[in-house]
């Protein structure tokens, strides 16, 4: 790498991008620098986004929560809006990496990296996040599931950046659950993760549920049939047994040094059992 550019304003950014079409964008660098070290990418020039203050922070706008793509994980954790209204995202970020990684890494970077193990992704899928993509000339908004195309593959064209993440809180959930299964309690790449948003009726039936799994397929996986099966069911072992099996049949995990495919498949289903702890004991 021969040089790095550090724009502080968007106009500056667009100019740098135009002048250096081969340059790579760097937010916190916690994914990119690892790749540069292992020489899996060899950019000649980096455009660092870290001083673009316009792309940082969390705010309400027209009934939506807008998160700047350059907001770091640490900032998310300390943000009152995230704490109150996006607690599922907060719990995902809480166990992401380690303090130094959370200090540097950004939400936008986690999305654009598009790893099936990206911890914020499963919550963002079930929060129905929409992504704002901008270039010098244009701006478009896409649902996260159509932006992420495959492992490491996103719908981002030359000259575009991810600028904001928008979350419309159409419904409220009493259960905001995220669980990451990693091989240790910090600095762990997820082996399986599951995010769940759920409402439970007084009689312990599931009235509404949204589920998403990480690390068990090429992208985050959601199964509409599992959600439909669960809605109206009792929150008991018997009530969710067949959903567990269905999840186990539907996921398509791989094996690596962290876990076998069978383990991932098995546990992906079993993680639904954790939801039983939200059943009221009345």
């Amino acid at each position, binding site marked *: 790498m021969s040089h790095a550019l550090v724009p502080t304003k968007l106009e500056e950014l667009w100019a740098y991008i135009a002048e250096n079409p081969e340059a790579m964008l760097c937010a916190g660098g916690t994914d990119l620098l690892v790749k540069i070290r292992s020489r899996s990418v060899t950019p000649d020039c980096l455009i660092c986004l870290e001083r673009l203050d316009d792309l940082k922070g969390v705010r309400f706008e027209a009934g939506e929560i807008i998160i700047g793509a350059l907001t770091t994980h640490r900032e998310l954790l300390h943000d009152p809006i995230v704490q109150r209204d996006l607690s599922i995202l907060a719990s995902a970020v809480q166990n992401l990496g380690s303090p130094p990684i959370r200090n540097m890494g950004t939400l936008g970077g986690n999305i654009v990296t598009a790893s099936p193990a990206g911890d914020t992704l499963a919550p963002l899928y079930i929060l129905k996040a929409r992504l704002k993509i901008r270039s010098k000339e244009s701006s478009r908004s896409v649902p996260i599931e159509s932006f992420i195309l495959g492992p490491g593959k996103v719908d981002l064209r030359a000259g575009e950046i991810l600028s904001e993440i928008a979350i419309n809180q159409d419904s409220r959930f009493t259960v905001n659950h995220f669980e990451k299964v990693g091989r240790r309690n910090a600095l762990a790449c997820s082996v399986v993760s599951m995010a769940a948003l759920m409402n439970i009726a007084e009689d312990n039936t599931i009235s509404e549920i949204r589920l998403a799994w990480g690390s068990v397929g090429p992208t985050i996986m959601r199964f509409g049939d599992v959600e439909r099966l669960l809605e109206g069911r009792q929150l008991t072992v018997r009530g969710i047994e067949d959903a567990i099996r269905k999840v186990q049949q539907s996921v398509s995990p791989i094996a690596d040094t962290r876990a076998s495919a069978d383990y991932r498949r098995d*546990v992906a289903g079993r993680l639904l059992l954790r939801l039983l702890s939200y059943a009221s004991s009345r």
Partner: protein
Amino acid sequence: MSNRPANIGSTLLRPDALLKVKGEARFSTDFYEKGHVWAGVKRAGRPHAILKNIDYSEAIKLPGVIAVLTHKDVGGTNRQGVIKKDQPVLVEDRIRHCGDAVAIVLSDTRRSMEEAIRAIKLEVEPLPAVTDPRLSLKDDAALVHEKNEDRNILLGGAITVGKGRAAEAECDEIIEATFETQRQEHAYLETENGWARLDDQGRLEIVCSTQTPFRDRSEIAEALGLDLKNVRIIVPYVGGAFGGKDGITVQTLLALSAMHAAGRPVKMWWSREESFIASVKRHPSILRYRLGAKRDGTLHFLDVDITMDTGPYDHLGGVVLALAMEHSGGPYRIPNGVVDGRCVYTNNPISGAFRGFGVTQVSSGIERAMDLLAVKIGMDPLELRLKNALRAGDRNFVGKTLTTSTGITECLETLASHPLWTQRSFWKRNAGILKKRGVGISAIVHGSGYGPIVPDYANAKIELTGEGKFRVYCGVVDMGQGNSTANVQIVSSILNQPANDIELVLPDTERTLPSGSASASRCTYTFGNALISAAKIMKERLCRKAADLMMKKDPQEFSTTPITIRHLPTGSEIPLKVIANMMDSSERIVTAYFRAPVAEDLVTGDYNLRLHGMPHNLFSYAANLACVELDEITGKVTVENYATASDCGNVLNPQLYEQQIQGGAIQGLGLALYEDFVAVEGHVTTKDFSTYLTPTSMDAPDIESIAMGIYETTGPFGSKGIGEIATNGPLPAIANAIFDATGHMLEKSPITPESVLTALTEISKE
């Protein structure tokens, strides 16, 4: 540090603590100079092959590249190793593992060095790789060293005790199990590195991160054909070692580089990835245990079979095997049996010294076997251990009579009355929803020193400086464990001098004296004993000087006091500085020698086993307890509490003691649950810390370390070895806790959530 004299048995802050926190302590990585040369290594990249040609024609043309060196540039034997010199400095014609060093590039910049390394092409003829230690014993296995006497066996041996196998028939109960332990990486923060220069008189000066400066010096001289006197090794602060720097890493390569750098200083610093591939690891092992007892729980018979994978080179593999065999029966009286062991060559990564040194592996075997037996007999596992615990005067499993302090009973009794043990049923019943809990223990013995033949000695040196302060020349490396702090305490307390008036000279083959390796739980025992003698001689010499000066007859009337010598009857004082000025520089230096006592028992007629350290004479002991919680959904294991009671002699410094226990326990926790250095067909697949997982602070339980404080009469101020024992306890204690929770004994480590989940689902089926 402190401006008052230190006391033995109380915490003295490490003199290096603040320096390290402030970043002021100088490590070998910190040596730079304008115009220095970078040296880097071309690695073989394949596990087994004939090396036909090294083509560096492109590499040498790259800008900045100064030279490319191969085995042809090595003047000496081109061999290194501690006991068996079977490792080439640079490969001649045979590649034996992926990390073999094939060529060195010298370059002006690190980047051009890396580019040149990539540009070197190796022409090879691949050979079948031997990567399964069991298969390496087969007749049709490829040979790793064609000229080795016993095919792929580096060292093998057997010991029969009592009636041997005949005793099996006399047992009421026998259990059998085969355990497998994995390869473990030391993962010290500071990767292997050094700095070297050849002066115009042909003298080589090497600053490096090592546990063994004096042995390195001989190895370098022999491998490169140099005069020992022309090689100097300096060891500044070391950023961790754990056995991984017990022997040559960069040293010879660096020395060779300096010989071709036209007098410029040379720096070599392995990346983490290179360190992973090239450095030694803990030996993977396969342990078959058959343990038999009488109905009342009296151990009667043990049959152990040990296979260890040493990779392509000895490093210290033979010694590791001998320790494993010696400790295979744990801290118990077992009158009859057989231990049969072998350390085999493969084309896997090199195995070598690692804190625990073979004892870690067999402790996990005997201790899991003990719990299997306890269940079979229907006896409490702690009671079974207490019943058979070794006492002074007993013979250990290999027949060595215990003549030094033997405190395993006290350790076990401490656990027996510990609340974590007495209240375990209550604790287990209170497991949360979808959780299961278990409590397990382990009892450990760990020998220290080099065994009966290799002399375990140290030479201490103390100098009274012109300012009336004291300089301690440390011949043994402190790689972070804190033995140099103990050195300050010893000198400060004997001479009654302020601790911060004691200056340390870190190991340097030209200034400090040969004192053996920083290994084998021996540093403070051996060097400390030498240092006590030196400090006493110094004290006596100074009192004599003062008596002469004050025209008193009896030096006994004097004592050293902070910065002075006092005549006790009159109270008059002479500043040490004044005394120092009246002494010749040779008089101001005291040296003293200590050689550790060794076992006289002839436990085996096999000289080779004895040369490799069988048996030891001095042992530390520990009993450990782990409380684990298992998650029934994922199989995740959480160690909620860990306690250890250890007999490591009298404690010189409680804080250092606790740090050794906690650090060792966490390293053992890594072995139990997380760390697995994987090589598939000889190729490393855990290439860095993203897949090689060590425990983090978030994974470490509360660790309680209780010292028995038993006085060892041969030890410095009653102390004995503490550096390794704590590493051995967690794997068996945790496995036994999982056994307690699930009824399944997991035989393979690391214990993965996957294997626990299988055990848990099996009980729900039963």
